[in-house]
């Protein structure tokens, strides 16, 4: 089976002086669930749109099951499901007609599965898309993305704006529908709890590149924070490759480390004479905050 998604050296800008992606390498393997995280504007949506062939790369390659999404758009889209926060569905169609249209477009469409999902969500079949609530529209988009049992599901902040119960339902359905089928999922989210529940691996986009990737189970064991007294510069730790970020917080400096908290703290103390006030492992949400949060 070819790799569901393989990205090499991907570059894309919207305005010349403002590159978004500056050489991204990323693979999503068969059956793998990857959580794509990063600040607003880090390029998560851009990357997903490039993977779908909705945007043209300015450099590098995108392959979906070995195919070029721009050269073979139909073959690629038949094997992929896509749900995005800002997705535009044909607003004047009613739910039933939209699903009928998808059934025509996708040879592997499973009408029974689509039916059971409509039932489950209790969607009004004859209502037009523009008259649906935000949550209902997202549910329709999910049915459109899942009923042909895609081999790769691309979710761009699919659950943002949904209430916690609807978000949970959305996740459960994606898992239920695709687990066992060996489908791969790439999803971007700001909900770190969802990422921890669903993903096997996180990919963190920052500065136009993949700044960090790690199996979800190993994040806290592999990343830690040392709070150091005084204001230190990143350059002072330049020779330590395991220092991921130096973040000044008033009279203290947060040093974000790749590694076990105790070992790293020992080295900072012994090698640099840092007074370590506190050191602790960083679970995903805290790691995200420490890597991206402001200084003061």
């Amino acid at each position, binding site marked *: 089976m070819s790799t569901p998604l393989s990205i090499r050296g991907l570059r894309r800008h919207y305005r010349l002086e403002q590159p978004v992606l500056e050489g991204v390498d990323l693979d999503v393997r068969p*059956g793998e*669930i990857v959580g794509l995280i990063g600040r607003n504007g880090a390029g998560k949506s851009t990357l997903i749109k490039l993977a779908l062939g909705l945007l043209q790369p300015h450099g590098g390659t995108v392959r979906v099951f070995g195919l070029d999404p721009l050269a073979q758009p139909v073959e690629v889209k038949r094997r992929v499901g896509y749900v995005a926060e800002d997705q535009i569905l044909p607003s004047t169609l009613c739910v039933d007609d939209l699903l009928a249209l998808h059934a025509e477009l996708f040879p592997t469409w499973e009408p029974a599965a689509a039916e059971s999902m409509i039932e489950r969500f209790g969607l009004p079949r004859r209502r037009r898309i523009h008259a649906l609530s935000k949550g209902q529209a997202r549910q329709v988009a999910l049915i459109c993305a899942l009923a042909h049992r895609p081999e790769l599901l691309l979710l761009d902040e699919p659950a943002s704006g949904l209430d916690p119960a609807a978000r*949970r339902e959305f*996740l*459960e359905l994606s*898992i*239920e529908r695709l*687990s*066992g089928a060996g489908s791969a999922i790439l999803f971007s989210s700001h909900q*770190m*709890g*969802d990422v*921890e*529940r*669903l*993903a*096997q691996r996180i990919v963190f986009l920052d500065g136009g590149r993949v700044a960090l990737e790690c199996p*979800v*189970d*190993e*994040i*806290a064991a592999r990343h830690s924070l040392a709070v150091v007294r005084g204001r230190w510069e990143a350059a002072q730790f330049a020779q330590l490759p395991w220092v991921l970020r130096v973040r000044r917080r008033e009279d203290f400096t947060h040093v974000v480390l790749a590694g076990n908290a105790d070992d790293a703290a020992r080295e900072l103390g012994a090698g640099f004479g840092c007074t370590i006030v506190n050191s602790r*492992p960083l*679970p*995903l*949400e805290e790691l995200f905050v420490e890597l991206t949060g402001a200084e003061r």
Partner: protein
Amino acid sequence: MPVSLSVQPGTEVPIYRQIVRQVVEAIAAGSLSQGERMPSHRELAILLAVAPLTVKKAYDEMEARGLLASRQGAGTFVIGTPADAPSSQARRAPLRESARALAAEAALHGLSLEELLQLVRAEHARLENER
């Protein structure tokens, strides 16, 4: 399954470890007994809203520890007995150091034992509520 499991993202403990811990505790407490059938990977994954591979990882670890066994086509069963699951003594050991540090800090701030216990109970209740 007669035991209700729940997982809590956002903690230092990976989700698969949380599952292992709760099943082990249920076996140790006798609420899961030998011969009982466990939910399938998929069933438990949907129940907890976590990826099926996470459940598989937890089950694999418990199989390796001789607490669960899977039979082709029949499912996964509890084969361990409370004697195989770590005792309350063993479960306490990793917390001893934190407990000592907490006791020392309480003394430093002039808290009595009763005040410290009240604080721990309140925090414990808060965590339970958040589940």
